[in-house]
C-alpha cells in the first residue's frame, strides 16, 4: 500500500476496520473522530507530507553541516602505560663549564660563565637549568654552536652575583 515503502504506524490496523463499521455507529461519534484522525496521521506518515505551510525557510544558498554532538575523549585504557620521563633534565642539559683562557676572561670581566650545553637546549631551558643547579640568578644567555657541533652558552649572571665567587663554588677556577 505504501508507495514509498515506509513502515506504516504499527498500532493502526484496528482503526481501519473500525472505520468501515463507523457509519452505522452514529452514537459513538467521538470515538470515530479520534480513529479518523489516527488514520489520517498514518496516511501522512506513509505517504509523506508535501504541505507548503511548514517548509523550512532557507536564507542562504549553501548547505552548512548541522552541528552534532561531540563527546570528549574517554578512553577505556591509556595507549601508553606510562609517559616517558624527561630525558633532557637539568643534569643532561648542562654538560660542563669551559675553562679556556677566553672563558676565564669572561668570568672576570663580564660576569659570565661559559658552559657547553646539549645541542637541543634553548636559552630559557639553559637559564632554568643553571638557576636550579647552582642557585644563582641569570641575567641573560647567549648561545652559539661550535664547529664541532657542540652548543656553547654564555650565561651572564645577575649583577648581585660575582662571577669569580660562583666559579670558585662550581670548581672551575
Amino acid at each position, binding site marked *: 500500500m505504501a508507495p514509498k515503502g515506509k513502515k506504516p504506524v504499527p498500532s493502526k490496523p484496528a482503526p481501519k476496520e473500525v472505520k468501515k463499521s463507523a457509519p452505522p455507529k452514529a452514537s459513538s461519534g467521538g470515538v470515530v473522530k479520534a480513529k479518523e484522525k489516527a488514520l489520517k496521521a498514518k496516511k501522512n506518515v506513509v505517504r509523506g507530507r508535501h504541505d507548503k505551510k511548514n517548509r523550512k525557510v532557507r536564507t542562504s544558498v549553501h548547505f552548512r553541516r548541522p552541528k552534532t554532538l561531540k563527546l570528549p575523549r574517554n578512553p577505556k*585504557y591509556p595507549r*601508553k*602505560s*606510562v609517559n616517558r620521563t624527561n630525558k633532557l633534565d637539568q*643534569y643532561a642539559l*648542562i654538560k*660542563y663549564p669551559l675553562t679556556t683562557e677566553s672563558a676565564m676572561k669572561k668570568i672576570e670581566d663580564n660576569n659570565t660563565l661559559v658552559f657547553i650545553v646539549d645541542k637541543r637546549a634553548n636559552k630559557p631551558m639553559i637559564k632554568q637549568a643553571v638557576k636550579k*643547579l647552582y642557585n644563582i640568578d641569570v641575567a641573560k644567555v647567549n648561545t652559539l654552536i661550535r664547529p664541532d657541533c657542540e652548543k656553547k652558552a654564555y650565561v651572564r649572571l645577575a649583577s648581585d652575583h660575582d662571577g669569580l665567587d660562583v666559579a670558585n663554588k662550581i*670548581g*672551575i677556577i
Partner: protein
Amino acid sequence: MAKVKAKDLRGKKKEELLKQLDELKTELQTLRVAKVTGGAAAKLAKIYTVRKSVARVLTVINQTQKENLRKFYRKKAFKPKDLRHKKTRALRRALTPYELKIKSKKEQRKQRLYPQRKLCQEF
C-alpha cells in the same frame, strides 16, 4: 661512596630512589667539571662507576614501575598496548584459539557421523 647495588635499591621507595638519583647526578656533574679542570686520576676513574650507578637506579625505578603497572592491569579487560603481548604483527591479528576451534553445526554433524577411521591397525 659505597658501591650502589641493585639488591639494596629494590627495597627502597620511589622517592628515595629519585633522591638517590639526584645525588648521583650532581656528583656526576662535579666529576665532569673536575675532568675539564684537570682533576685527579681518582676522580676521573670515578666517572665510570657513577654513570653505571645512575643506570642501575634508573633500571630499578623503571622495572618496579612496569611490574606494578602489570599487576594493576592484570585482571582488566583492556590493557595499555605496551603491556600486551608483543609477538608479531601477524600473530596479533591471527584468529584466537577459540575462533580456530569453533565448528558449524554441519561440520560437527559430519565429524560425529564420519570420524576418521583407522584401518589395518598393527598389533
